């Protein structure tokens, strides 16, 4: 007797959710990222308005001056949803952990000369508070942004910023051989040292901006000055042991910029009004951000140090130009 084994193919009735099929015009299998982000934003049947802002619906595209015909054009180039985000960041975190372990085992940060150690503590540790504010700003964008693509990526960015604040804390603990004295001093420096006050003032002014897209732009502009100045220029004159443990920040900033720059580019390409609003916001925040870092750069890098923020500002202006935003 012979047995014939036959396979029968059962084709699913549909390949993806109906709203995804409608959006792409074909019923083909969609990626997880697409299913998690496209057309998920609630649009109708809101029962009541927020008591703190009754002029808006719960989710309202009018919360920003930026206008888009379609809010689903901001596809994250990294395609982050829960799983991809966590896998990516876990790998980055692991690299940081092993770098810090390497540095701690060989006591590379403790072997620094006291002056050098003080200088690093002075410019790096107060940035925890900058990162915390960046977390608040990202969460505001996640809360009020319209269209799931920006909101979810912003929520991930917010988590990143808290993470970076924690990494800075861990560097501080490693430098203080486990004691919290450097963290406490960092807070005092952020609150009282004249070099830090312009940046603190700027950060606090951005915290109360209520147009979420302006918050996004202001944060982009501040990062575009602070990251190159601190993690490139300051880093270059610090001992290489420090560069080992701040590698995360450089990698993260490059990764993060892929998303922020896409958002700016796409919104600027949408219409002339958007470009004009972007230019206005950048003109308002960019010179302040560069100015805020000048005094700090002078203290860290010496008399000619204020060249660093000036260069970062010029680079950022050029970058914005390629994204379609000209800053006066």
């Amino acid at each position, binding site marked *: 007797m012979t047995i014939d084994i036959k*396979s029968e*193919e*059962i084709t699913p009735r549909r390949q993806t959710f109906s709203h995804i099929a409608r959006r792409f015009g074909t019923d083909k*299998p969609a*990626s*997880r*990222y697409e299913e998690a982000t496209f057309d998920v934003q609630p649009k109708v049947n809101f029962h009541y308005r927020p008591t703190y802002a009754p002029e808006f619906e719960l989710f309202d595209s009018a919360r920003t001056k930026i206008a888009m015909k379609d809010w689903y054009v901001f596809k*994250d*180039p*990294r*395609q*982050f949803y829960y799983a*991809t985000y966590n896998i*990516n960041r876990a790998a980055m975190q692991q690299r940081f952990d092993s770098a810090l372990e390497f540095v701690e085992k060989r006591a590379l940060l403790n072997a620094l000369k006291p002056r050098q150690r003080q200088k690093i503590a002075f410019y790096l540790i107060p940035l925890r508070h900058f990162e915390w504010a960046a977390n608040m700003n990202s969460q505001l964008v996640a809360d009020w942004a319209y269209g799931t693509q920006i909101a979810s990526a912003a929520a991930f960015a917010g988590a990143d910023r808290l993470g970076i604040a924690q990494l800075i804390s861990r560097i501080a603990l490693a430098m203080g051989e486990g004691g919290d004295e450097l963290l406490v001093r960092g807070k005092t420096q952020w609150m009282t040292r004249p070099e830090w006050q312009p940046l603190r003032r700027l950060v606090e002014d951005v915290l109360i901006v209520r147009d979420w897209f302006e918050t996004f732009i202001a944060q982009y502009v501040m990062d575009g000055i602070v990251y190159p100045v601190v993690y490139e220029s300051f880093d270059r004159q610090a001992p290489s042991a420090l560069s080992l443990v701040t590698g995360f920040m450089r990698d993260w900033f490059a990764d993060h910029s892929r998303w922020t720059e896409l958002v700016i580019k796409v919104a600027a390409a949408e219409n002339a009004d958007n470009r004009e609003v972007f230019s206005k916001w950048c003109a308002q925040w960019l010179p302040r951000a560069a100015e805020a870092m000048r005094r700090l750069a002078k203290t860290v890098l010496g008399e000619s140090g204020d060249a660093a923020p000036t260069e970062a500002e010029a680079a950022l202006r050029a970058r914005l130009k390629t994204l379609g935003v000209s800053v006066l």
Partner: protein
Amino acid sequence: MSRDVSITLQNTQEGAAITEAILADNEGAVRRDFPAMIKIDRASRLVIKASSVSDRLGRQWDPQEVHLSLISLSGSIDEDDDSLTLFWR
């Protein structure tokens, strides 16, 4: 005489991205769907470009990762950092 080269991939998220990249980069490639598999045939030569797959996945994709999605293939293989090529000599 030209023979077909072919590659068979698992029908997963990554497999779907690789398939899309192959179909976009190789004119005349034919896709055939099976339960849980996708088979792609093309006359004499087929290229998987790492950059195309990376764009679709949103992360850096290494041609060696093809083994995570691969069921079967036919043809000689030429692989480097940027692409994986199937061909008959």
